[in-house]
């Protein structure tokens, strides 16, 4: 059995240590000259048009051309035009401000969903990133909304406590969260990273540290975090809809390690444990484990493939975006030339037979513009461990995305 002091005191002790460290570094503040070099801006604009069917299997059941046409007309149209404005100001050696604002106008079914959610506006405004980094000779202190990206996996990454993958994004991009972060370099290739959430109540906060190093060509790291109970809600918030909402908010001590290196093919993995609390005591008998393994390889510089597995074991709390016992991911890309590629990926949950896949053709039209045509299909919700009903339909959609950078 392991006895911890009151969690609030523990949190206070950690934060106090951070403040003492900052105060200790404060003499260096006087030597930091104010840097005002204005803001550097960049922007991307994209429009996404999608035609979707709630029951894609109806096409296979069509017995005639008329039925096929009726099914085709039974789809619904949605779209999203997004302008992302990024800015960065300051100096890397003293202080920086980084931000990313997304302005999106939905239409079709997407606009209807927004109206149903009770939004009085016909658009969405998202502050995807906004943080300040103050750099001292011995440390970098960041505060605000940022992506804390720990994981080695392209999709499965249980160690990514603070950033969830956006499954609606073809590129499987990640979403930021509000944290305070202290990064302490130990050498050019090693360091210590201390992070704590800001948006959660203190008794539900998620905080802790991770240390990393590169040895003999392998990237290695170990982490230890305290989950006050807010982790599931945090990941729901960053992951968006269809998150693991059914999991209770259970306080736990999280720890583990990860690696990435080469064994002819690229090989990486993460192994984590979660020991829940009963009151202020840890309950090792109910420890939950998560293991993610992945490999990537390329053939002739033309074909690129990635295979990943994530397994969750034990009776204890489950964390991460994918809660089923056995989760699989496969990705295959074919690069026709420097401007054109065909990409595909498939997520399959063995326990529930839920799956999600996408096939896309991407083409760079000119220097700063690209076009993507894609088809996506899914059955069930891949994030949860809840069993799938037999009559769960296959959702099918066809889309087109045009994107330009400035």
């Amino acid at each position, binding site marked *: 059995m392991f006895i911890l002091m009151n969690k609030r005191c523990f949190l206070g002790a950690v934060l106090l240590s951070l403040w003492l460290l900052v105060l200790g570094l404060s003499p260096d503040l006087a030597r930091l000259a104010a840097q005002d070099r204005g803001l550097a801006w*960049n922007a991307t604009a994209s429009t996404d048009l999608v035609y979707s069917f709630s029951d894609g299997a109806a096409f296979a059941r069509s017995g005639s051309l008329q039925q096929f046409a009726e099914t085709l007309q039974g789809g619904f149209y949605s779209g999203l035009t997004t302008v992302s404005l990024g800015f*960065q100001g300051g100096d*890397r*050696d003293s202080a*920086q401000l980084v931000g990313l604002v997304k302005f999106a106008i939905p239409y079709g079914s997407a606009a209807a969903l927004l109206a149903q959610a009770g939004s009085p506006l016909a658009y969405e405004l998202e502050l995807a990133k906004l943080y300040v*980094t103050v*750099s001292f000779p011995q440390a*970098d202190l960041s505060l605000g909304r*940022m*992506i*804390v*990206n720990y994981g080695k996996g392209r999709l499965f990454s249980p160690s990514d406590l603070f950033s969830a993958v956006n499954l609606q994004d073809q590129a499987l*991009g*990640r979403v*930021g969260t509000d944290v305070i972060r202290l*990064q302490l*370099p130990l*050498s*050019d*290739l090693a*360091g210590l990273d201390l992070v704590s959430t800001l948006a959660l109540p203190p008794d539900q906060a998620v905080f802790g540290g991770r240390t990393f190093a*590169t040895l003999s*060509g392998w*990237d290695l790291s170990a982490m230890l975090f305290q989950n006050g109970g807010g982790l599931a809600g945090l990941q729901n918030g960053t992951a968006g809809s269809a998150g693991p909402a059914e999991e209770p908010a259970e306080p736990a001590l999280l720890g583990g390690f990860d690696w*990435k*290196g*080469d064994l*002819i*093919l*690229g090989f990486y993995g993460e192994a984590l444990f979660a020991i829940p609390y009963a009151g202020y005591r840890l309950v090792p008998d109910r420890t939950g484990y998560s293991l993610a393994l992945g490999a*990537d*390889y*390329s053939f002739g*510089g033309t074909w690129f493939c990635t295979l990943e597995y994530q397994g969750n074991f034990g009776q204890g709390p489950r964390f991460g975006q994918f809660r089923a016992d056995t989760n699989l991911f496969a990705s295959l890309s074919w690069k026709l*030339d*420097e*401007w054109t590629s065909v990409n595909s990926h498939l997520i399959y949950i063995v326990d529930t037979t839920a799956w999600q896949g996408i096939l896309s053709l991407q083409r*760079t039209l000119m*220097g*700063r513009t690209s076009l993507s045509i894609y088809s996506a299909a899914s059955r069930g919700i891949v994030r949860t461990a809840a069993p799938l009903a037999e009559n769960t339909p296959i959702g099918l959609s066809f889309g087109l995305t045009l994107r330009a*950078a*400035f």
Partner: protein
Amino acid sequence: MKKLSPSYVIIALVSLMGLFPIQVNLSAQSLPSLSGEEILKKIDANASFGILRYRGVMEIQQQKKMLIKEFMAIAEGDAKAFVEFINPEDRGIRYLKIDKDLWMYFPDEQETIKISGHLLKEGMMGSDVSYEDALESGNLLKKYTVAVAGTENLDGRPCYVLELTASTKTAPYDKQKLWVDGERFTVLKSQMLSKSDKLIKESLALQVRQYGKRWFVTELRMEDKLKKGGGTTFKMTDLEFDVSVPEDQFSLRRLSR
């Protein structure tokens, strides 16, 4: 007409030589005899510098299409390099090279990834310059045996022709052929070959400039002969040698800051 005396003619010629020094151009045949190892060492000595900072442009051409990538680079010898792209579509993407290891940083995802070994043969940012080409630290002698195949004139420059044969499995190419400027000791042309002498890649120096005592190739054309048409032109401008940089310039901290 009075004949000029021979001694007067000789004195006149010597005087003229003093006023107009005759530049002696070495021809390929007159290059001093050096071994392959000596030539490679002179190339390395020419290319040695403390810290180099420059602005680079990659013009990636395939058939009629052109992609332009711009970046700022800082390099310490051939073991360390830090590159940050500044063209709009790639702005903020960074590379860090330390010896044989390469990391990339993607600012949108705030993600640092280590480039797997099998990806090192890929072209950097879609160019014909592979990560392996960029990573190949100097000292070719550690990976290749070298022999002087002869001398040639290349675009008016007398050159040593070197033939390199891989002596380790880690050498990126089975064979290489180099045309080395016999006066400046810069590589003017190189060919990367397979075991069967099939041409894989070819690079050609388009511009060579002098910086102090050293000569530097500031414009290079690389063509992947396994692809149809196209190639990558690599240009270096605003070169600054032996600049001072922060202590952590070549670190993961700087990469993700």
